[in-house]
């Protein structure tokens, strides 16, 4: 059989098909990767807007850039094993590598200038599983959706003329995302604490605990400090690094402790809106104690190269339908890829 049995018209039509099929697949791949729709919200857009508001700081995280590593253990009392089959909730000890940080993309920001603080933890389970969680010292998240978070970053960017966010833009943002009003009201009356040690850190997003029978329980969790609250002092505002200095000083005197408190939802509690706190009367389970023993600067510390992706979960903990979780996971990965590449370049280790 040869080409001669085809007419010229047939040949042209078939040749066109030979080109058109791969071309269609190429276009489909470009679309799937977001290259044809640069306006669509993607991990790239999210990281780009954070970079714009925090400035470019190669080698650092795109958000929560300033922080320190902490090392310790989680001592489980077994109470949470009734609702989660995760091995770390059986009675026993799990090593933890954590990180305290302040929000924002600037690793040189003065500690007192940023009211939002975070605690990120990576639990290393004996079987090779991990639980990574990034928590914030906020009662609820400012916005419910990824679009809301993006719009908030754009609206709160300082106006070059005044050096402050444009009030018109902020107003437009709140009109578009009215759930942010509750957060803005909370910020107004909020007095930050004097230390990471006496802050309470909350998961904000909802998750599902899976018990031994396979039943799911909707939960949120908090690290509740055993150290009493003290408001930020006037003196703290003279030290750009007062949070890190305070932590070092406290840990020199002994370990710091938090209780891991699991809040269990009741039917009707929202699973997909981190801007809504659940009623305070919900059942809580004290799952055990986080004991932090020492702190290491992040540049030399083991937490620096950990991506605290909230979707790295052990068997027994699963994501909820909260849309922010996927966005955090995708954007953290992007930020991680950028900074690990920059760090390798800085150290001469990249090919």
């Amino acid at each position, binding site marked *: 059989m*040869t080409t001669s049995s085809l007419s010229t018209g047939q040949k042209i039509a*078939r*040749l066109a098909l030979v*080109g058109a099929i*791969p071309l269609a697949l190429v276009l489909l791949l470009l679309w799937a990767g*977001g290259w044809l729709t640069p306006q669509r919200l993607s991990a790239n857009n999210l990281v780009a807007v954070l970079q714009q508001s925090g400035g470019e700081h190669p080698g650092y995280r795109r958000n929560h850039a300033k922080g320190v590593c902490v090392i310790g253990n989680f001592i489980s009392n077994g109470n949470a094993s009734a609702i989660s089959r995760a091995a770390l909730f059986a009675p026993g000890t799990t090593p933890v590598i954590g990180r305290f940080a302040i929000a924002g993309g600037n690793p040189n920001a003065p500690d007192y200038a940023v009211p939002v603080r975070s605690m990120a933890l990576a639990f290393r389970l004996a079987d090779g599983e991990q639980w990574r969680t990034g928590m914030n010292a906020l009662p609820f998240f400012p916005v419910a959706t990824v679009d809301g978070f993006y719009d908030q970053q754009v609206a709160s960017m300082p106006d070059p003329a005044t050096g402050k966010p444009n009030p018109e833009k902020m107003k437009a943002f709140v009109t578009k995302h009215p759930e942010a009003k509750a957060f803005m009201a909370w910020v107004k009356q909020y007095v930050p604490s004097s230390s990471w040690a006496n802050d309470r850190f909350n998961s904000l997003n909802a998750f599902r605990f899976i018990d031994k029978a396979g039943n799911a329980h909707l939960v949120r969790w908090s690290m509740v400090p055993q150290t009493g609250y003290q408001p930020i002092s006037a003196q703290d505002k003279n030290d750009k690094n007062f949070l890190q200095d305070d932590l070092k000083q406290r840990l020199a005197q002994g370990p710091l402790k938090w209780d891991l408190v699991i809040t269990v939802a009741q039917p009707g509690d929202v699973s997909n809106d981190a801007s809504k706190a659940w009623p305070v009367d919900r059942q809580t389970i004290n799952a055990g104690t986080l004991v932090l023993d020492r702190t290491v600067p992040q540049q030399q510390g083991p937490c620096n190269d950990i991506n605290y992706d909230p*979707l790295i979960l052990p068997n027994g903990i699963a994501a909820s339908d909260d849309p922010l979780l996927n966005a955090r996971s*995708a954007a953290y990965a992007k930020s991680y*890829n950028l900074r690990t590449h920059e760090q390798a370049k800085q150290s001469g*280790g990249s090919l």
Partner: protein
Amino acid sequence: MKQVAHFHPALRFLHWLMAAAILAMLFIGVAMVSTVSSLHSLLVSIHKPLGLMILVLVLVRLWLRFYTVTPSLPRSIPGWQRGVAHLSHWALYAMMLLQPLIGWGMLSAAGYPVTLGDGIILPPILPVNNDWYATLRPLHSLVALLLFATVMLHLAAALLHALVLRDGVFHSMAGTRRR
């Protein structure tokens, strides 16, 4: 040496199964790193076990490829085209084998648990090391794009043989007709 018109049925089966798996994998890969929707975690959870499946299948396929008789290209094909055909096939095999290993290695170097779902975890194949991750992560993207480009050329050549040249080359893999 024995002359055959078709690839061994097991090789043909693996070829078409892997064609579907690899195309799906490439689309999943580019979509999962871009999207911030709920597809992100779903795609990530498919990407890892599917990658391991491709690694296992390519090992079986390479073994079969070496131990079965394969059809030779028709004499109508000029020498340089035979060269290109063989080169592209070995490039495809090399990338199919390397890409899952690069993915596994980069996750190991980042200290991520390589989870396949339901608490099944693969052991790390590299120690935790930022420089390794910083090298392997962009390499994983680069090999993905090279693999996609080579698969598209392979597809265009296959279509040319099937629709225009009709010289039996396509049918040696499709198994649809005797020469």
